[in-house]
């Protein structure tokens, strides 16, 4: 019964150390030291020395058994289950003859069955754990042993070993970097697995070890490292290296942590400091808890209640027995004396209590847990088998890695998502650009065929073949030699910090520290401006086939405040030019006034790009005269040399020169979302699931992605940014956000009322207003005007759409005990929450917080090792598979390749699982109560003697044979509505969240029904049979006839009941239902046959009963009567409920079936009322607002400029490094380090939040205003040509997904936009009056002004005025 078990930490490498250690303590005694480990001493190349400390080695064990220990350990574990122990206890009770009311086999057969099924399952699980342990433990790494490199398995790597890592290898343990093939002991790592940041990071070895270089020297290295004990702080390491009587301090900068990947570095050597469970990755992975679903918990509670109920019944019957024995039994002793040990009625009652506990134990169905397991296993297989969750690109199918959580998938309320790799593909593509007021890359013909991908090869032999661009005009413009275009790409090829590597002629590899920059340089490369190589002082490019070498005069490096970077170069002709790229917000301010017109056009373009969720950069240049350069160069040198406030002085110097620039244009980079992300998010939020993004990435990036996946939209009332560094400031920010929300929603509510009134007075167009006010607010409230103003400060009644963005360091404060409630209430009032720069542990904390405060089911989805802790602490963890790195997958409960499969996992599989499980449980409790309670009633007629009503074989087989399969078939196969319907009507998901289908109330209903059935099943045969006789005069009231009649009636009633409950009759259901009834009769006749009786006359006492009984018409009349009395009320009740209070699923099912039956093509309108509240629109979801969200959204780090100019990272030995000032070399890495710890300064909300004016009245915000979609379902599809609609559906290929089921949904956006447009157009003066009212109320111009232009509002904002 795994339900109750602590399933061990799931799968491998991310084991929880805490628990493991405890276990290891017994075996190897390894952990003894661990508890007291205060510092770690590791001596390189000295295994004997290190062995003394018994540090954990790199081996990871997650399996629980081996062949020998399996049986005892597994049985021991199984008997730790309350339920199993209980049944064992019953078994022992049954062996006491005075108590035994049933044969021993009635309990042992089911118990053995249950135990063996569970054991088989445990064995299978453990086998896979062994397999995956082996897989990780057997990865190869090269270890330096006695002076030579030897291949060793990961598990054999020990603390103190020196191992060699090669490019793109995973780091096997936490290493101290000793040396690398790169100069200065540098190496580059990608830490995405650890913290989710995708940019490359630099690590440098201590200089003395860096010189060691090759293995021969390293073999004799005998330094000793003394450092802190294992901990989970990813960004901190503190230790000292003692070598040759000298001390060298060690920091995190010298460490390579397990889980990182070596990049751009041929090879490096490292000393193992922490291994296996001690590594930071493992320490960070949080505690593995055995996950239990809420249904499990409820079930356990209910089982306890049932136990209580059982004891009550036992007591009642025991009291009955006492009374009976006193009043009747004592007088009856002439025929039935008391058993020898029984000397008074009290003792008899005591024994009878236990006897009744044995008999009535079937109310706690022994097969419950095992059946639940089987059902979940079935659901898991369905998830694994789902082709619609199969990603053909990476050839991975969805995998359900646990089999215990399925129904919880149908109850999710909060989703916590990682960004990189989960929402995004982490691929940047150069998507669009605007050059000199001309935009390129716009796909203009959405209905036409897929535009052709440009082929660069004939034009440019150096082009990167992987680069995609579709707009021929741009290439034309390059070819004809448009000056602006050339300058544009020249800028891109010069202004960056990319390093190039040219292995052979023309085979260029760019090493960009951020993928955006790589994308820009690659774009320039393909359009003929190829960046070839750089030295500290030069940049060599090939421009339109001509090699040009620029001398690099200065790099004005990027930082978070400047949000831009520039280079100053001198071209071969001697002209000095400053090229700058940066966030438009900062760049556009620094343009020369003559750029005004171009600026406004470019600005429009930028808005467009921004609305599409692209990351934008503005590009500008400035020619410098020699004098200007000289002058500035001097001041720059000054600033650079300054010892105090160097930063500020440099910034001021940069600021001085980056003025009066000429605008070149803008670029738009797409941070490619995973397929179908916006649609999925929209669908899930329609299903009332809240989505939080938790990312280690920077705020700008996170916000940008938030917009591009439509979590944030321009229609949002306000976006709050919490970025405070201190407790007070965070508290203050949270408080003011709440106040603002309250104020806005109050204002709005009042405003709405007033507005509605005004409209009504004005033109009496009530319908229009209602439709529109819901649209405008974008809130899910239909009764917008009836919302009470939230003056009380109740955060639940906040209306309107808010978003909250909080950064890691603020989060740290917000998660403190005294503020967390405040944080939760603020965050939960928001529609979207984005946490950026969070550490893995914080991710888990956020999840825990919601679990604690909201009592809601949470789901965490992520792809990297940094998500592991979150995945583990959420109720359900989902890992994105198919990418590099499997840490997240291994820690997860479900894994699949694409974020968009989440909708299917939740809305289809989860919903079905929940539904099936609930129906299963209801029925299961029902059937056991119906079965068992008959004994209770019989007790009153048999002197409370614990006489069973049924044959003991019937009792044994009832739960495991006669009634198990039909309900299992229902639990596995049942469907109320088909899968595509549940995607179409996300509202169908809500019953699960509200826990409507199985809760205490439902439980009481079904046990009441069970008890009712038992009453009928006992008293109807009682009334009929007591005086009945066979047609040959033999009375029918003998015990065996009664038993057979009741049992048969019971089997038939519960079979009819399951037939009623089953909504989806597959072959299996038919087979099992009919089969069960058939098997009942077959087995009964067999058990009552002569053959068995002749062998065991003592056991098969019911010989002949079946035939004697079932040949009597009265018996069948009794059974029919009992069945009718049991079933007819249920049937009537269900029918009336269906008619009077239909659930959404009933309606959908009904329309579905009616449609199927009628095959009416035009049936789309059926159920239209429901669609209104539930259906989702695909395609373009957000209205194009005017917000500008460009930022220098690079995942960029400061300091690379300096690194380049210092030449430190360049391998060209020919470089005259001496030319460069030595202070550079010490400062660049300082800068890097400092920047890493120094976080983004708090930004004001203004930058990212759309201006309040965007709270539009008329822009149809499709994502949420589903209420508009209701009315006009019959809009002809032809209107789809409306250009506004299809745009983004073509840019996201997801739209071409399983086309057939979604087809109706795709119509929705058309409907709404057209209807909205119609509404805006037709009533004269409507738009105007709207605007007026708005202005009057809010004192600001809304987006209504756009609709003033008498065109559909969407288009109005899209097309910039020319």
């Amino acid at each position, binding site marked *: 019964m795994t339900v109750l078990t602590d399933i061990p930490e799931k799968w491998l490498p991310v084991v929880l150390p805490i628990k493991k250690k405890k276990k290891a303590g017994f075996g190897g005694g390894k952990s003894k030291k661990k508890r007291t480990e205060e510092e770690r001493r590791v001596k390189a190349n000295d295994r004997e020395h290190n062995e003394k400390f018994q540090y954990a080695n790199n081996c990871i064990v997650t399996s629980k058994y081996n062949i020998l220990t399996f049986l005892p350990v597994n049985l021991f574990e199984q008997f730790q289950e309350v339920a199993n122990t209980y049944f064992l206890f019953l078994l022992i009770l049954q062996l006491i003859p005075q108590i035994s*009311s049933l044969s021993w086999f009635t309990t042992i057969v089911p118990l053995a069955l249950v135990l063996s099924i569970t054991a088989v399952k445990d064995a299978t699980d453990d086998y896979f754990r062994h397999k995956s342990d082996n897989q990780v433990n057997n990865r190869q790494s090269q270890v330096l042993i006695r002076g030579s490199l030897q291949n060793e398995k990961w598990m054999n790597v020990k603390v103190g070993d020196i191992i060699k890592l090669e490019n793109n290898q995973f780091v096997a343990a936490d290493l101290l970097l000793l040396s690398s093939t790169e100069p200065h002991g540098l190496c580059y790592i990608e830490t995405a697995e650890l913290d989710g940041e995708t940019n490359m990071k630099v690590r440098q070895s201590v200089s003395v070890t860096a010189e060691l270089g090759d293995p021969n020297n390293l073999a004799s290295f005998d330094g000793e490292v003394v450092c802190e004990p294992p901990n989970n702080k990813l960004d901190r390491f503190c230790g000292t290296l003692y070598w040759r009587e000298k001390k060298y301090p060690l920091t995190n900068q010298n460490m390579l942590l397990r889980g990182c990947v070596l990049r751009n570095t041929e090879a490096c050597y490292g000393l193992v400091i922490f291994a296996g469970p001690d590594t930071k990755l493992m320490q960070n992975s949080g505690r593995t808890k055995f996950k239990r679903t809420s249904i499990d918990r409820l079930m356990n509670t209910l089982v306890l209640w049932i136990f209580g109920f059982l004891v009550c019944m036992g007591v009642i019957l025991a009291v009955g027995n006492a009374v009976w024995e006193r009043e*009747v039994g004592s007088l*009856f002793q*002439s*025929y*039935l004396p008391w*058993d*020898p040990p029984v000397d008074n009625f009290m003792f008899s009652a005591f024994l009878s209590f236990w006897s009744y506990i044995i008999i009535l134990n079937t109310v706690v169905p022994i097969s419950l847990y095992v059946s639940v397991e089987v059902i979940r296993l079935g659901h898991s297989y*369905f998830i*694994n088998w*789902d*082709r619609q969750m199969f990603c*053909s690109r990476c*050839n*991975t199918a969805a995998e359900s890695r646990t089999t215990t959580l399925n129904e919880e998938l149908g109850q999710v309320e909060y989703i916590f998502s990682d960004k990189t790799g989960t929402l995004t593909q982490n691929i940047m593509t150069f998507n669009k650009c605007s050059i000199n007021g001309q935009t390129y890359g716009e796909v203009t013909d959405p209905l036409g065929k897929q535009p052709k991908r440009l082929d660069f090869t004939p034009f440019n032999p150096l082009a990167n073949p992987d680069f995609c661009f579709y707009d021929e005009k741009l290439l034309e413009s390059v070819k004809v030699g448009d000056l602006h275009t050339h300058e544009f790409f020249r800028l891109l090829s010069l202004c960056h910090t990319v390093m190039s590597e040219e292995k052979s002629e023309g085979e260029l590899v760019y090493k960009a520290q951020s993928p955006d920059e790589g994308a820009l340089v690659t774009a320039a490369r393909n359009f003929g401006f190829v960046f070839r190589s750089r030295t500290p002082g030069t940049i060599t490019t090939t421009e339109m086939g001509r090699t040009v070498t620029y001398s690099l005069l200065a790099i004005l490096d990027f930082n978070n405040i400047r949000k831009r970077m520039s280079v100053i170069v001198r071209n071969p002709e001697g002209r000095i030019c400053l090229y700058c790229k940066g966030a438009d917000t900062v760049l556009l301010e620094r343009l020369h006034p003559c750029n005004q017109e171009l600026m406004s056009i470019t600005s429009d373009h930028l808005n467009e790009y921004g609305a599409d969720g692209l990351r934008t950069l503005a590009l500008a240049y400035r020619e410098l005269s020699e004098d200007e350069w000289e002058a500035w160069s001097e001041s720059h040198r000054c600033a650079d040399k300054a010892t105090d406030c160097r930063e500020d002085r440099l910034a001021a110097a940069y600021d001085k020169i980056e003025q009066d620039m000429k605008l070149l244009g803008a670029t738009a980079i797409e941070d490619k979302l995973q397929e179908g992300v916006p649609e999925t998010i929209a669908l899930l939020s329609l299903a009332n699931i809240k989505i939080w993004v938790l990312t280690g990435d920077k705020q700008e990036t996170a916000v940008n992605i938030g917009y591009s996946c439509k979590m944030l939209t321009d229609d949002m009332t306000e976006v709050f940014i919490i970025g405070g560094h201190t407790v007070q400031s965070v508290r203050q920010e949270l408080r003011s956000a709440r106040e603002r929300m309250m104020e806005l929603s109050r204002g709005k509510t009042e405003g709405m009322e007033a507005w509605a009134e005004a409209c009504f007075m004005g033109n009496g167009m009530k319908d229009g207003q209602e439709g529109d006010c819901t649209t405008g607010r974008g809130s899910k409230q239909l009764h917008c005007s009836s919302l009470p103003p939230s003056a009380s400060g109740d955060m639940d009644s906040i209306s309107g759409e808010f978003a909250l963005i909080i950064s890691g360091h603020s989060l740290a404060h917000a998660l403190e005990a005294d503020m967390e409630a405040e944080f939760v209430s603020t965050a939960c009032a928001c529609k979207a929450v984005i946490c950026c720069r969070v550490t893995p542990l914080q991710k888990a904390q956020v999840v825990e917080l919601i679990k604690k405060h909201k009592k809601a089911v949470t789901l965490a989805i992520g792809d990297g090792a940094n998500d592991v802790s979150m995945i583990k602490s959420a109720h359900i963890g989902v890992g994105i598979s198919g990418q590099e790195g499997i840490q997240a997958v291994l820690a997860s409960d479900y894994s699949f390749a694409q974020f968009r499969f989440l909708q299917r996992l939740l809305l289809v599989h989860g919903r*079905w699982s929940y539904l099936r499980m609930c129906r299963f449980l209801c029925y299961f409790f029902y059937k056991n109560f119906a079965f068992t309670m008959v004994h209770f009633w019989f007790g009153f*007629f*048999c*002197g409370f*003697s*614990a*006489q069973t009503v049924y044959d003991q074989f019937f009792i044994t087989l009832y739960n495991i044979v006669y009634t198990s399969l039909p309900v299992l078939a229902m639990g596995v*196969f049942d*469907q109320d509505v088909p899968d595509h319907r549940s995607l179409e009507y996300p509202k169908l998901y809500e019953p699960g969240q509200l826990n409507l289908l199985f809760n205490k109330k439902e439980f009481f209903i079904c046990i009441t029904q069970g008890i009712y059935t038992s009453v009928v099943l006992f008293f109807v045969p009682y009334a*009929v049979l*007591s*005086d*009945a*006789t066979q047609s040959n*005069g*033999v*009375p029918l*009231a*003998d015990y*065996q*006839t*009664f038993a057979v009649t009741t049992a048969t009636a019971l089997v038939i009633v519960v079979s009819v009941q399951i037939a009623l409950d089953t*909504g989806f*009759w597959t072959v299996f259901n038919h087979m099992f239902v009919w089969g069960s009834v058939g098997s009942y009769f077959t087995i009964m006749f067999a058990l009552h046959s*002569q053959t068995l009786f002749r062998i065991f*006359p*003592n056991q098969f*006492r019911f010989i*002949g009963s079946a*035939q004697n009984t079932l040949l*009597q*018409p009265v018996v069948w*009349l009794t059974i029919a*009567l009992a069945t*009718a*009395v049991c079933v*007819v009320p249920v049937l*009537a009740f269900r*029918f*009336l409920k*269906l*008619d009077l209070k239909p659930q959404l699923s009933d309606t959908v099912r*009904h329309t579905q079936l009616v449609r199927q039956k009628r095959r009416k093509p035009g049936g789309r309108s059926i159920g239209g009322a429901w669609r209104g509240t539930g259906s989702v629109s695909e395609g373009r979801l957000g209205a194009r607002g005017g917000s500008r969200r460009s930022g220098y959204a690079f995942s960029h780090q400061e300091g690379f400029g300096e690194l380049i100019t210092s030449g430190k990272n360049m391998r060209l030995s020919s470089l005259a490094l001496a030319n460069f000032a030595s202070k550079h070399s010490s400062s660049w890495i300082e800068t890097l380090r400092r920047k890493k710890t120094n976080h983004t300064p708090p930004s004001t909300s203004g930058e990212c939040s759309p201006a309040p004016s965007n709270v539009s009245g008329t822009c149809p915000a499709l994502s949420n205003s589903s209420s508009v979609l209701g009315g006009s379902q019959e809009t002809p599809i032809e209107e789809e040509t409306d250009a506004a609609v299809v745009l983004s559906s073509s840019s996201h290929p997801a739209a*071409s*997904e399983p086309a057939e089921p979604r087809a109706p949904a795709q119509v929705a956006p058309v409907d709404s936009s057209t209807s909205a447009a119609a509404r805006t157009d037709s009533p004269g003066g409507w738009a105007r009056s709207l605007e007026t009212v708005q202005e009057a109320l809010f004192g600001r111009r809304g987006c209504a002004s756009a609709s003033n232009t008498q065109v559909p509002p969407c288009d109005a904002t899209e097309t910039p005025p020319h």
Partner: protein
Amino acid sequence: MVKEEQEESSNRPDNTAFTQQRLPAWQPILSASIVIPMFLLIGAAFIGVGVALFITSRDIQLQELDYTGDDSEHPCFKCRTNTEKCTCSMTFSIPTLFKGPVFFYYGLTNYFQNQRKYGASKDDNQLYGDLNYFTSPSTDCDPYTRDSKNMPIVPCGALANSMFNDTFTLSHTVNGVQKIVPLDGKGIAWWTDYNIKYRNPSITPLINAFNGTKKPTNWPKPIYELDTTDVYNNGFINQDFLVWMRRAALPDFRKLYRRITHDDYAAGLPAGNYTLTIAYNYPVHSFNGKKKVVLSNVSWMGGKNDFLGIAYIVVGSMCVVMSVVMLIVYARFKFAEDV
């Protein structure tokens, strides 16, 4: 998509109706067009059957005579506490012909044959004629396993020990002369009991099989002397014994004693006065039980059973009423939508 379909990839799950959960399925819904007619149909059927049952049941005649003798006026009152053999007789009259075949039952009330201990107190192996269990009966029979001299009791157990041993004679007063009504005791037990479940040991004479065993303490004579006239009605397969051993499900029960199928009475008991003579042996006074004799005839569906007919009529009418209610509800709330 098309391209991908063609591509054979190893991990792609099979595209079968089963794995994709697209199995063809019958999806019943409780639509009005099914439920309401169904209710009507069930209702009609139940009412029909109920009426038939009720009428049949009414035609069945039943004559019940309580002979416990609690009442001091009662002829059997004297026997009530008498431990010695005692005979009493009761007279009754039958107004019209009591149609045959007539069945003669004895009934007991407040008698807990369904008590667990009581019911379990027998040894089926012994009763199956297994001689091994003659010498060492199952402990289930306690405390009637062995007598005070530690001799095994056959048949052991409380159930056998308490066998009903009143005997009855029925006489018809024809012209003032008592005429004994012949009672037929053949085939009153279950066929399976008589032929399979209970067996005498295959030792002749039967008495030898019981060497070294004792009769049940309450019994006046041993099991092999229950019916000395008929070797096939003796020992464990004695019909009265079998009838007794088939324990009743409820504390008030009646068991078949004899059939009246012979001679003049094959067609039934003619109207007239009858005398029932009871050899009153079986004490029920101690536990407030009652003893009675029941004469009854049967129909195709067995003995008199008013409850069944009434229940069917009630359930049937409820169904009809429900279907009307549902129709009203349906018409009010759903009709417009559905059409």
